[in-house]
């Protein structure tokens, strides 16, 4: 009996059992090895059963995420201040064994960072919500929006929050243009405008109704085509026109599982999207596959996938 043959037979048996074939039926595929294969196939069945019974608790994932994001903040602040980075206290016995010496310092730093973050968020909420580009509190408003994005885990809510912030950028620009038209003198201000690319004439593009000056130095990032939503980073001039420093196709990342897939019917985490000819699919995509999606938005509000990266086989839970 060739060793390679029985190991290959075992692998085929495992695949059969994982796809729902009865153990006895899988053994009948290799009658000459049935006796030797029974034990490892039963173990494979037990392992598969154990794996399939695992449910990832959302509350634990959310707690872990918040703890992690706060630790990131602590680390960044410590490095920025040039001080020694405080090690964050690890929770598990193994983790404590790894970092026992810095446990107390890490906990103190964690609590300080938590307090500072709460104070910053409170200040942003109260004082900076109406700030416009160019005003002193505007960076705090941006920090508050970033913090909101950090803490949102649900892909659907995150996507909607990003779109809300896009609309907020446009409202800010419109308000500034109204101030200019009312006679207020404003120095060129860095702003952002998000919308559907409607027209691309030489030197002047139209984005969501706004004329944007596109100069030789303007950077174009990604496949910037009419009919797709783009992000314009540029300078709002004193005369109310917007000159673009950079125009990028608006992308959204969705992490999750494919709800279903098929000709013209794609969804992930409840978010429908189209697959185009230039969509890159990395891996074998099937319902249940954990994926990373990079989506662009069309002018009609639909999402189109630029990248579908399959992380693992389907059937996980």
């Amino acid at each position, binding site marked *: 009996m060739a060793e390679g043959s029985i190991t290959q037979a075992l692998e085929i048996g495992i695949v059969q059992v994982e796809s729902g074939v009865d153990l006895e039926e899988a053994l009948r595929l290799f009658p000459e090895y049935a006796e030797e294969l029974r034990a490892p196939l039963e173990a494979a069945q037990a392992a598969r059963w*154990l794996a399939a019974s695992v449910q990832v608790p959302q509350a634990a*994932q959310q707690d872990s995420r918040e703890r*992690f994001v706060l630790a990131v903040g602590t680390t960044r602040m410590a490095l920025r201040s040039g001080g020694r980075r405080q090690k964050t206290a690890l929770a*598990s016995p193994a983790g404590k064994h790894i970092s026992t010496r810095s446990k107390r310092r890490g906990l103190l730093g964690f609590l300080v960072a938590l307090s500072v973050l709460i104070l910053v968020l409170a200040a942003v909420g109260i004082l900076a919500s109406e700030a416009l580009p160019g005003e002193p509190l505007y960076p705090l408003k941006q920090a508050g929006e970033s913090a909101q994005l950090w803490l949102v885990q649900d892909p659907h809510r995150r996507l909607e929050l990003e779109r809300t912030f896009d609309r907020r950028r446009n409202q800010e620009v419109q308000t500034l243009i109204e101030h200019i038209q009312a006679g207020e003198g404003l120095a060129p201000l860095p702003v952002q405008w998000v919308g559907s690319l409607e027209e691309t004439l030489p030197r002047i593009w139209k984005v969501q109704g706004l004329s944007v000056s596109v100069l030789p130095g303007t950077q174009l990032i990604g496949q910037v085509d009419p009919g797709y939503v783009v992000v314009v980073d540029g300078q709002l001039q004193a005369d109310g026109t917007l000159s673009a420093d950079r125009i990028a196709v608006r992308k959204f990342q969705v992490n999750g599982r494919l709800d279903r897939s098929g000709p013209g019917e794609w969804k992930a985490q409840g978010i429908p999207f189209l697959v185009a000819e230039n969509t890159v699919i990395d891996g074998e995509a099937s319902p249940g596959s954990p994926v990373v999606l990079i989506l662009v938005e069309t002018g009609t509000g639909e999402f189109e996938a630029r990248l579908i990266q399959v992380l693992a*086989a389907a059937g996980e839970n």
Partner: protein
Amino acid sequence: MAPIPSSPALSSVDDLLERSQRLEVEALAQVHDLFYPEVYRYVRFRLDDDRLVEDVTSDVFLVFLEALTRPDGPQGDLHGWLLNTAASLVNDSLRRNSGKPTPSAEAEPAPPPDAAAVVVQADAGDPSKRELQRAVRQALAKLPADQQHLLAVRFAEGRSLEDSAAAASLDLETHKLQQFRALEALRRRLGEV
């Protein structure tokens, strides 16, 4: 006045790692969102205590953050790095807990004499499912660490044999043989539980 930061560069896993190495908060949060379920499934496959599983899973990402500030931090295969870190923390936990009785061992009824045979017929409605899960994990914990890791990557992570061989930097035939031996060993242990 500083320019408004442009939209985050949304990208693949390799780009996420690169941005994480710069300690970009968005990227690090995305790493956590992306890999938490898989790390959790790996740790849960091998450890029985609910609270310990959550702690170890969370600690994997804190160790990741710490490693990013060192020159020898994660490069290339982020998924593999996280699983290897999870394996290390799980192995440490098992070593520390070896020989200690499980918290509820005296209160729970003893598992059936041959856990493998019962598991084959077990379904979601079986009230002793928790005991069976514990029995399978106990059997798994008696295997050498490398066999536990191989089975966890293969079954908890759902990797194909080819992918798990590549992750372990082994040729396919060697990996098949290791899988055969690991499963044979697990079956023997299941019969002892």
